[in-house]
């Protein structure tokens, strides 16, 4: 008798656990299977693809990759994406950090107004600016140049960058800088050797946010870039998929190539990325 009760609760408990795991597994499959399906089929010959789409490939055929690489100019796309992503991120974070330092550590007349002005940018829907951005770039003679995309990417990610960095820098105690000033340190020196190193966690967050946004950005690239030699990965993929609608294998190989770097980056830095993206989302 005395043993029956714990046994029963144990059983109930395990049914509930089982149900929870069932639901979670279904959720995980729904999340991962589309990506996995795409990757698996990128290794199948077109014959195998028509016969068996749902399972693992019999043997890993690389033809699709060769086709995709040759027809879609992936080398160029990768190069452009890496260049735009890294340069825009570095410039955004550097400019943003310098501005944040001024806003967070000095009091001057326009400080609050300036801060609000920057943060307002988070409310501006990017698509509402596509038309004037195109005209502006055309008038400035900047359409289809290697620096075109840097401007909108920097401009639209400065608000979130400044927002996260100022709220982080405001929390520092003042005495470190004061003693540095006493020692005859210049302000830029203080920024570079004291404030930046101290802000490392927040800098990491904004770097990750910028990297992911810039790597995946599509709308501005679509409107501002037509030269095939300047296209970024998302743009190149979209036009590649549009042209080779019947070559599924090559499309999936191209997709796999383009997601592998971001998935590797994600798995490697998952904690930081989740923290960064949620901070960005909650504040943006």
């Amino acid at each position, binding site marked *: 008798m005395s043993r029956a009760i714990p046994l029963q609760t144990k059983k109930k408990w395990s049914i509930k656990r089982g149900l*929870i*795991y069932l639901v*979670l597994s279904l*959720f*995980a499959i729904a*999340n991962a299977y*589309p990506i996995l*399906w795409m990757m698996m089929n990128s290794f199948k010959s077109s014959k195998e*693809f028509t016969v068996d*789409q*749902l399972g693992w490939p019999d043997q890993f055929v690389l033809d699709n990759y060769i086709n995709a690489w040759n027809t879609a100019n992936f080398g160029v796309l990768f190069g452009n994406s890496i260049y735009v992503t890294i340069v825009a991120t570095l410039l955004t974070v550097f*400019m943003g950090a*310098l*501005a944040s*330092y*001024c806003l967070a550590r*000095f009091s*001057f007349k326009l400080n609050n107004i*300036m801060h609000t*002005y*920057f943060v307002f*940018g988070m*409310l*501006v*829907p990017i*698509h*509402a*600016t*596509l*038309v*004037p*951005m*195109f*005209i*502006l770039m055309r008038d400035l003679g900047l359409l289809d140049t290697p620096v075109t995309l840097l*401007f909108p990417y920097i*401009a*639209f990610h*400065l608000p979130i960058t*400044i927002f996260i960095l100022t709220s982080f820098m405001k929390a520092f105690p003042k005495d470190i800088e004061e003693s540095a000033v006493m020692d005859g340190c210049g*302000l*830029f020196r203080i920024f570079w050797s004291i404030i930046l190193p101290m802000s490392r966690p927040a800098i990491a967050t904004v770097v990750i946010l910028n990297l992911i946004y810039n*790597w*995946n950005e*599509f*709308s501005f690239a679509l409107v501002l870039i037509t030269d095939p030699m300047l296209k970024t990965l*998302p743009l190149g*993929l*979209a036009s590649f*998929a549009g042209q080779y609608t019947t070559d599924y294998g090559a*499309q*999936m190989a191209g997709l796999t190539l*383009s*997601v592998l770097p*971001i*998935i590797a980056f994600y798995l490697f830095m*998952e904690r930081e990325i*989740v923290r960064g*993206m949620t901070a960005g989302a*909650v504040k943006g």
Partner: protein
Amino acid sequence: MHNSMKRSWFIVLGLLPALLVYTVFAILPILQSFYYSLMEWDGFSDMVFVGLDNFKELFQDELFWNSMKNNVLVVLASVLGQVPIALFIALLLNRKLKGLKFFRTIGFLPVVLSTVVISITWGLMYNFEDGLFNVFLRTVGLDALAQNWLGDTTWSMPSVLVTVIWQFIGLYLVIFMAALQNIPEEVLEAARMDGANEWTTTWKITLPMIWDTVIVAVILCISGSLKTFDLLYVMTNGGPAHSTEVMALYMFNQTFGQFQYGYGSAISVLIFAFSLLLIFVVTRLLGKKML
């Protein structure tokens, strides 16, 4: 005196680069879209000032209302799909489970992928002949249920909405998981001591304590889904027969497809106004309920 001069110069020089790029490439375009919205303009020849004519025309434009209706459907599907599913999964994950990290990692994965990749992959899955869904249905003998998912006006919008919901559940999932972790263990402990079962604890304590986060998620969800563009541009380009066209897509096609820069700008202005208004109203409504 000398020092404060130096300081002022430093502040000016420090703010200038960010201020310049941000003003020219983010704020100026918004102001210009207000200006262009008052013009009749094909983007090349001279502009003609037409006042509010573009807006008048827009209000009588059935295709515009259609795109707004579809946009509202995207908002509703996101709010009613993403938020409850994410909340449910987060509540399931909010206990000592093996593999918690695994489920979170997989759950968040779609969020970091580019929308273009997601659109093309799902487009391939929806394909009539060789797409995953139809192949699966035919494999299990349900041939009759196979549909031309994206090519049929009845099915195009529901199909697209499934992808829309799928893409961002993970974002809200991790937001909710973080909020749930912040609830002090003692509060839940006390409830259990008082004999509350899990169901009651969840409804009476857990949910009210993370309600602020739920509201933030709803607002994010609304402003995010009003910006829907890439996904539909790549997946369907608004078709078939405008059945999946949203406001940003209609704006894009009017401007760059029909060369109606003024008209397109008027749509931009409405998107801007509409999203600010909706966010304001929702904040107010949900904010009041809380009190």
